[in-house]
């Protein structure tokens, strides 16, 4: 009994004092605590910005400070969780005119390459599957920060932006010439596993 207890204490204390971030690590994106956001922004008629988000998604990434090029990201999004703060609009966005969530309930991003550009900037390329179409997109990434959190965990966060034409993903509802492209803003915080 004493030995078991000791083993437990050793196990937990050792994991708490592992030198941080010096090796490849897998992170789970903190959607439970909602420290991750997938927002979109599209022009309304060319006169203002419409901003919305996807409320339900999950994902993980790995990041190695010594070998950042080996970093990987996978994110899966429930398309029906789109939220533009207007129920009638969300209903329309989920319909066949846009996301067609009945047929395409998931969108997915799987990274294919990651290149650090210095100054905390990086370029992430990956395959985005949306509306049943898979295309490569490039995400401009900013490494926001990393370190211990106040509750015994270790966290690392990135922000990224990308832009693509809705038409490229087979969404061709006419929103007008100013609204051909949608911008995505992603903010993800991972908790090291």
């Amino acid at each position: 009994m004493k030995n078991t207890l000791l083993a437990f204490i050793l196990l937990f204390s050792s994991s708490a004092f592992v030198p941080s971030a010096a090796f490849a690590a897998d992170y789970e994106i903190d959607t439970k605590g909602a420290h991750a956001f997938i927002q979109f922004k599209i022009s309304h008629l060319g006169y203002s910005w419409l901003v919305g988000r996807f409320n339900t998604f999950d994902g993980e990434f790995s990041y190695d400070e010594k070998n950042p090029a080996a970093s990987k990201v996978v994110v899966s999004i429930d398309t029906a969780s789109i939220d533009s703060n207007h129920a009638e609009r969300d209903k329309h966005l989920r319909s066949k005119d846009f996301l067609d969530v009945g047929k395409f309930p998931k969108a997915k991003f799987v990274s294919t390459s990651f290149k650090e550009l210095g100054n905390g900037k990086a370029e992430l390329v990956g395959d985005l599957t949306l509306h049943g179409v898979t295309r490569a997109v490039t995400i401009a990434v900013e490494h926001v920060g990393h370190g211990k959190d106040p509750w015994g965990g270790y966290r690392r966060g990135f922000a990224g932006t990308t832009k693509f034409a809705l038409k490229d993903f087979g969404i061709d509802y006419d929103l007008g010439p100013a609204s051909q492209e949608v911008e995505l803003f992603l903010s993800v915080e991972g908790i090291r596993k």
Partner: protein
Amino acid sequence: MKLRNTEQRWGLVSVIIHWFTAIAVVGMFALGLWMVELTYYDHWYRQAPFIHKSIGVLLFLLTLARLLWRWSNPRPVELTGHSAFEKRAARIAHGLIYLLLFSIMISGYLISTADGRAVDVFNWFSIPATVHGHEQQEDIAGLIHLVLAVSLITLVTMHAAAALKHHFVDRDRTLSRILGK
């Protein structure tokens, strides 16, 4: 024509409400199917749903008033020439029409108020949201709204066909009575 119903005839109020409802139901069905197909740059894109919702709320109030009127008035007796089956089928159909009307209007209201927004009635007054914020409320209410609307139009078609059958085949007073005669 008297305003109130008698044992023999429908009064003017019942006749007018019946035909106003008939026009509204057919018109709203067509308007509803048409408006959801409009494109973003169509002039009616915002106006058509606004009119659809406004009429829907007014029809709801009218139907409530109609029920009150119906219960506070004599009911014209069923025509003696009708078979027991016809009488029973008509009673069920009429009950179902009321039930569908209210269910359609409530489900429509639940689409527009799913995020807590009120429904505006012709810039005249607005109906605040009550039940809102449920997961995909607008999608579920929308599906119910459509399915029930198609059911109602089917039932209304049968209702109209039955009235025409009484008028032209049986040659009785069924249709004439709802015209106030």
